[in-house]
């Protein structure tokens, strides 16, 4: 009951804040929601199933281009969004094949290679992707008379998907799939011994992770109304990785915290791009050296400390 009330208040706050935010801040918060959805996908692939993916920006891009190109063909947003996810998911399953054989650094390099190749395709195949200038004039959806074209309405749409994505990830993690992912992540050989088909679940981990990224991409394109290959480079994949590492791999809260820090941090600190990239790189090293669970443990500590503190005050 108390927890429901807590989350109710949080959601109420998130519903109210757009009225107090400037245009740009509203955009940054909306972008955070989109990136969180992608990071949740990466967290399932890497955080839970322990399969490195450094090409999540490719999955993200496939979702975004699917949305942009099919919208231009006159399809409905609501019809395309599942396709954004499914295309990316299918592509993810294909990329998952190498994961059956290689892990860690090999997989890291293979996925970097995939990201570089997809980036080249986006840049070069102008007939499909519009080349370096990308696709512009992307429209936002509507339901009947309710239009999501104003920034503030689109914010609410993203908020809905943000909450849905978090709930979906909680559901997946606690389902049979999630348990299998964690088992493979912890010890592949042992999990195979317990009758978990590591073959199927590794592919699934990639497919599900990519599906989230694809849906994120599908929501990203109408948010910006314009997409170009720059938004889907290997460095963006790296940013997704930084998000979940900083936040906490293999924890539901991980990508949520990570996305807030990585997307909003630079805006709050008003730093040049290179400066915050230095800071994030250092945090990455620091987290690996001293705090491998990520910032989520700070939250855990608070969760223990606050009730104890309240108790003492009494």
């Amino acid at each position, binding site marked *: 009951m108390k927890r429901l009330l807590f989350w109710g208040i949080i959601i109420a706050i998130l519903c109210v804040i757009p009225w107090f935010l400037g245009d740009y801040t509203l955009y940054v918060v909306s972008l955070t929601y989109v990136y969180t959805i992608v990071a949740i996908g990466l967290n399932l692939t890497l955080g839970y199933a322990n399969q490195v993916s450094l090409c999540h920006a490719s999955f993200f891009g496939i979702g975004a281009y699917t949305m942009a190109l099919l919208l231009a063909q006159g399809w409905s947003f609501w019809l395309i969004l599942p396709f954004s996810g499914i295309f990316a998911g299918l592509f993810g399953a294909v990329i998952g094949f190498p994961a059956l054989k290689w892990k860690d650094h090999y997989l890291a390099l293979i996925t970097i*290679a995939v990201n570089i190749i997809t980036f080249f395709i986006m840049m070069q195949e102008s007939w499909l992707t519009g080349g370096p200038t990308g696709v512009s004039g992307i429209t936002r959806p509507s339901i009947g008379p309710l239009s999501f074209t104003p920034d503030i309405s689109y914010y609410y749409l993203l908020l809905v998907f943000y909450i849905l994505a978090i709930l979906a990830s909680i559901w997946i993690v606690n389902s049979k799939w999630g348990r299998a992912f964690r088992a493979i992540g912890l010890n592949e050989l042992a999990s195979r011994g317990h009758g978990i088909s590591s073959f199927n679940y590794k592919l699934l981990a990639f497919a599900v992770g990519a599906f989230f990224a694809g849906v994120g991409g599908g929501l990203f394109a109408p948010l910006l109304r314009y997409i170009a290959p720059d938004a889907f480079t290997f460095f963006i994949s*790296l940013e997704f990785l930084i998000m979940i590492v900083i936040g906490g791999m293999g924890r539901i809260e991980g990508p949520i915290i990570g996305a807030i820090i990585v997307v909003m941090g630079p805006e709050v600190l008003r730093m040049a791009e290179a400066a915050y990239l230095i800071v994030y790189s250092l945090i990455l090293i620091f987290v690996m050296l001293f705090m491998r669970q990520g910032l989520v443990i700070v939250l855990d500590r608070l969760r223990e400390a606050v009730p104890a503190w309240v108790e003492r005050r009494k």
Partner: protein
Amino acid sequence: MASFIQLLIGGVSMGILYGVVAIGFVLLWQTSQTINFGQGELVMVPMFMMVGLHLVLKIPFWPSFILTLVACGIMGYLFERLMIRKLLPGGVLVIVIATLGLSGFLRYGMQIAWTPQTLFFPHLFSTKPIELGDIIFSPEDIWNIVIISIIIIVLHLCIKRTKLGMAMQAVAQSRETAELMGINVRHIIILVFVLNSVLAGTAAVFAAPIFFVRYDIGIFLGVKAFVAAIIGGFNQIRGALVGGLTVGLAETFAAAYITTAYRDAFVMILLLIVLLIKPEGIVGIKEEAY
């Protein structure tokens, strides 16, 4: 035919550079299971050092070269001491993430501390084309090939013939056994890290005039070296060299005969093909599945 030979020379001179960087990479992996995603930055940093010492402070070439190599050695030592030693027990993935962080730190650090622009480094050798019948080539390419080949041969002899080199091989084969034989594994690993940085520093001096000096050149070189190591064979020094040459030749010929648009992507496609057909690499020896 003439253009084929010209491309061949150009490709080998590129490839052998990738090969040197890849050798350090393979040595790190063999002796300490370190995958260094910051390998390219270990080349980028000495490039800037050379520019700083030689062009800005006007120190003559040789002293600045030696100073750069010394600085590289110290960098390699600190890299092992401050980072890798603490991370090794965490497994490969932890090292992958941390070295990605290191590469970002060095890359953007250099961008902020120095310049986001491309700097030029003078050619070490004459670039005045030599004509041999129909074939036109640059002496720079030939010198690069000759000098780097000598460095690789000397390195190879040191590893095969000297006591220290044999200790290195022993650590690569089995850490525990080497320790039992009275080899100080710690020292050998530090030595390999220093050697790797010095090799990268040497490669930097040859690469600087060709690729130009830019803060993000490390990604380009690092990924190529990593791809070279995997294509050639991760468990062999020879593999790194073969891989480097394959990458250099493949991209040169692909750009000339197929399409320039996909020049850098072509190497990645080659990587995927090699991994599908012969995952242990061209000259690699099969181990248990990675």
